[in-house]
């Protein structure tokens, strides 16, 4: 094996120009596809597109119309003033004139059905705004007594009103038109709305558009910030031009390859895959830094002229020395990422596959391109500062970071001493921390509600909260009832069953508003009976239903019944965001439908909300499975690597504990498990385990050198591995920490918690390992 590797390394160095050209070629091709990468703004990416809930919902949308809605609302002491009604009427017209608007429903244009002596009138609620206070009062009274208006366009107290702007249904088209519409709506509001008066814009489309905007701003923050950090780290570590340039180029190339790979897989940039660049940058940077450090270490004691003549040998030596440890730590990181493939949430799978492969790319570049460039341009002696050569007496002092020498080393060594001296206390404390964390882990709640991705103080969240508290919930679910027989629902007995479903739905506390065809039929029936409230009821014969429908020309009904009257839809608006709670509500509705809907009718609960709930379940299940897989493989590798069962078990402890602590933090601080935070442990385990591998390997070697003197071996280990471990962890903490600048709640937590995990991984490693190794005294092979 060593021979094959040696041949390979020689080949790389002998053909350095070819390696450089080939790398450049692949990179240029990769850069060429980068502009093709699509941004996927929709929240659709989180859904399992093969599930029956997804497919049936698409069919439902085909029938009952697009779910793309922008909602605008505002509040005033009394909505029924001449000024307000004129404003509503003007805004309604402006909104209707915007491109891609299908329909606008507002207090002034909502259909009002009126029965008056011999007349039957269907007309917009306010055609001409009255000046007379008495007439305004009459309008108020009429609006507040119409169930079809209440909570939809007007609040029960008459102080808040809403516009519902529906977009035309565009199948599979680009999202650009949604963005334009939301922009246009805002433009109209700025132009028409009195200065200083507050308005709120929400609705599913708005949420999606702002979501996309945040995503782009995330990317625009992550990448430059990450580069600044990279640059700072490199300048501080190497303080030479090439020492900064080479890792930077290597890292960039791996990132470019990775993003091209993302494109070639047919994936796009979405809310989850935005995390790839910053995370990849920090992981791949470490790879290059490791390589350069080792090179410098090997060359620093040689005189410049010897350096040139021995260049190939030094590079080859470094490659030999680093290949296996790097390979192993890479594999664990890759396994961590690939374990995400087990998840059934598509963006999580995509991130796992692409980032895992990206780590592999970084490995390839470190062992082909970097050595080839150094050889080709004889860069070895340009990598380090000549001053280091003069002072460089021993290995550890030279190991990069001259700026961070004495003090950190002292701290690290005292940590080792403390750990060995108080090993019992440390072990017991760790055990307690582990148990408490495990207990807190069970308090973790899963949440995938899209609106809760936004912080409470973000305008869209505030707008949504306003509409929910003053009018009705923004979350919608639809109950689809399909009979398969034409005119089935014209039978008053069947309509009665829909009415029963409505009544049942209103018994659920968070249900705000239920609307079905029954509400319209009751309203028409009342109008045909001189507005007599007793006739606010389902018409008593099938023929009457058919004749009312024949007459009622407005297209409102098509949102609730198909043209054959065999497919009914009941729309439910809820005040609840929590997918965990919605899950229970949906189950409750399903069990009611199962008991009460006749066998021949297929009843389904459909909607965006249902899909969000589904992805909730997928996140939980995926988390358990993929973490189990990652742990099995990675810990399995440790047993094989150390060829010892006791050492294998011991090596698990400093990795399991940080994971538990992280879950514990999530449980205690009520941070929810969602599509982003569920990835932390999988990715994290692959990364924090690297330190253990390095540390345990070094410890094994020192044991041989010191004749199995454990304490001495620990000190030596700390002396050689301590500072690099701290530095690499710091780089990773910064890399993941950058993601903490996200404007999305889950992405933000992903960044912060990943950084916390790596931080915990670091100090647990430093504090716990000496205690573990000196207390349990495992034998190394």
């Amino acid at each position, binding site marked *: 094996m060593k021979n094959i590797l040696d041949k390979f390394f020689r080949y790389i160095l002998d053909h350095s120009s070819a390696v450089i050209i080939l790398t450049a070629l692949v990179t240029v091709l990769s850069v060429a596809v980068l502009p093709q990468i699509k941004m996927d703004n929709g929240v659709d990416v989180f859904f399992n597109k093969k599930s029956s809930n997804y497919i049936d919902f698409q069919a439902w949308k*085909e*029938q009952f119309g697009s779910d793309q809605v922008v909602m605008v609302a505002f509040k005033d002491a009394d909505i029924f003033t001449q000024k307000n009604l004129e404003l509503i009427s003007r805004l309604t017209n402006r909104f*209707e*004139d915007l*491109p891609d608007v*299908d329909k606008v429903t507002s207090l002034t244009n909502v*259909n009002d059905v009126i*029965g008056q002596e*011999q*007349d*039957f*009138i*269907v*007309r*917009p609620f306010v*055609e001409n705004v009255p000046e007379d206070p008495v007439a305004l009062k009459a309008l108020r009274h009429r609006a507040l007594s119409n169930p079809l208006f209440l909570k939809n366009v007007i609040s029960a107290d008459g102080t808040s009103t809403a516009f519902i702007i529906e977009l*035309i249904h565009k199948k599979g088209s680009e999202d650009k038109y949604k963005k334009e519409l939301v922009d246009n709506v805002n433009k109209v509001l700025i132009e028409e709305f009195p200065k200083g008066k507050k308005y709120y814009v929400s609705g599913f489309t708005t949420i999606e558009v702002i979501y996309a905007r945040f995503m782009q701003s995330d990317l625009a923050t992550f990448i430059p910030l990450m580069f600044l950090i990279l640059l700072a780290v490199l300048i501080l570590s190497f303080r030479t031009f090439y020492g900064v340039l080479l890792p930077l180029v290597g890292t960039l190339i791996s990132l470019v390859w990775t993003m091209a790979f993302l494109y070639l897989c047919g994936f796009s940039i979405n809310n989850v895959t935005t995390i790839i660049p910053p995370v990849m940058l920090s992981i791949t940077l470490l790879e290059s830094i490791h390589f350069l450090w080792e090179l410098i270490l090997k060359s620093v004691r040689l005189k410049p002229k010897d350096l040139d003549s021995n260049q190939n040998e030094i590079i080859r030596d470094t490659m030999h020395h680093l290949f296996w440890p790097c390979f192993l730590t890479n594999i664990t990181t890759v396994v961590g990422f690939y374990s995400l493939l087990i998840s059934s949430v598509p963006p999580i799978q995509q991130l796992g596959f692409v980032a895992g492969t990206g780590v592999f790319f970084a490995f390839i570049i470190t062992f082909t391109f970097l050595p080839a460039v150094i050889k080709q341009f004889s860069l070895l002696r340009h990598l380090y500062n000549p001053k280091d050569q003069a002072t460089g007496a021993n290995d550890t002092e030279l190991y990069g970071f001259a700026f961070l020498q004495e003090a950190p080393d002292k701290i690290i060594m005292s940590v080792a001493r403390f750990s060995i001296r108080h090993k019992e206390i440390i072990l017991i404390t760790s055990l307690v921390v582990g148990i408490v964390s495990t207990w807190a882990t069970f308090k973790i709640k899963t949440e995938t509600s899209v609106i809760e991705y936004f912080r409470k103080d973000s305008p869209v969240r505030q707008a949504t909260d306003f509409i929910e508290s003053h009018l009705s919930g923004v979350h919608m679910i639809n109950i689809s009832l399909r009979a398969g027989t*034409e*005119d089935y629902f*014209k039978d008053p007995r069947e309509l009665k069953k829909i009415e029963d479903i409505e009544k049942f739905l209103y018994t659920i506390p968070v249900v705000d508003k239920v609307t079905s065809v029954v509400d319209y039929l009751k309203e028409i029936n009342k109008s*045909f009976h001189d507005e007599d409230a007793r006739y606010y009821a389902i*018409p008593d*014969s*099938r*023929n*009457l*239903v*058919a*004749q*009312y*429908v*024949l*007459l009622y*020309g*407005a*297209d409102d009904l*098509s949102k609730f019944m*198909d*043209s*054959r009257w065999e497919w009914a839809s009941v729309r439910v608006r809820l005040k609840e965001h929590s997918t965990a709670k919605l899950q229970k509500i949906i189950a409750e509705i399903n069990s009611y439908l199962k008991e009460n809907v006749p066998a021949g009718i297929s009843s389904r609960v459909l909607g965006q909300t249902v899909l969000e709930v589904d992805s909730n379940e997928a996140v939980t299940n995926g988390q358990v499975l993929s973490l189990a897989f990652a742990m099995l493989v990675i810990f399995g590798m440790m047993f094989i690597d150390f060829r010892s069962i006791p050492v294998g078990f011991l090596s698990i402890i400093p990795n399991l504990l940080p994971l538990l602590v992280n879950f514990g933090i999530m449980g205690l601080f009520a941070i929810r498990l969602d599509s982003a935070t569920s990835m932390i442990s999988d990715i994290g385990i692959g990364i924090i385990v690297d330190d253990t591998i390095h540390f345990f390997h070094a410890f094994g070697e020192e044991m041989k050198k010191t004749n199995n003197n454990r304490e001495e071996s620990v000190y030596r280990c700390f002396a050689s591995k301590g500072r690099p471990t701290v530095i690499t962890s710091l780089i990773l903490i910064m890399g993941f920490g950058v993601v903490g600048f996200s404007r999305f709640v889950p992405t933000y937590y992903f960044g912060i918690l990943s950084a916390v995990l790596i931080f915990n991984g670091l100090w647990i490693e430093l504090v716990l390992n000496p205690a573990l190794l000196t207390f349990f005294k495992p034998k190394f092979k």
Partner: protein
Amino acid sequence: MRNLFVGVIIAFCVLLAYRQSFAEAPSGASIIEKSFNRDDGKDSYSKIEMTLVDKQNNLRSRILEIYSKDFGDLTKTFLEFSKPADIKDTRFLSIEEKNADNTQYLYLPALGRARRIVSSQKNLAFVNTDYTYEDMQRRRPEKDAHKLIAEESLDGHSCFVVESIPRDGASQYSKRISWIDKESYLVLRVDFYDKKVQKTKELRVKNFEIKQGIWTITQVEMENLKDQHKTLMKLLEINYNQGLVDDLFTVYRLEKQ
């Protein structure tokens, strides 16, 4: 030299033909006027099969009978559904007014009562079809500004193509483009444009012939492009100039069993 001569001759002929066509082409307004005033009988009775086609291609069929009579310049129409059973005997009376929207009454047999239908929304669908209440009214030519924009052949019939833009805003459409057959002066196709000047509907005459000496449309299709919904109408029976009595066109008659 010879080529030049031929060239000049051709150019001259083209110019002549161009001038000729200008000289002969009637104005858009006169075409619409002529079409509006063409002979469609003093009165008529027709039996029609109406088929509604939704976007999933589900068909629903209805049979209706229409009585129509001219009262001077204005027309009254009486309409009765005979199929399907649940809307049998539902009746509809439309009285054209000189300077206002038609007055419309509806009789629902299940209630045994007639109601005047008042709607200021012209875009409401007429009995669940793709025709709106506005489409059902005869549109008087003076309400629009007309312009002849082309002359072309449509399914083998040579037609005038006239663009009509409402003079006031009181229409659900921003414009209509009509293809008018030069021979019969029947409107063979209309493209309807909504307020955003997007084509929303298309009316197409599938078949027409002379019945009892009068050009008569026997098959027509209205398609709503937005909803992908269609209304097909097929003439089953037609009788012109039978001398229908005036009493037929009254509310009293509407409510009588």
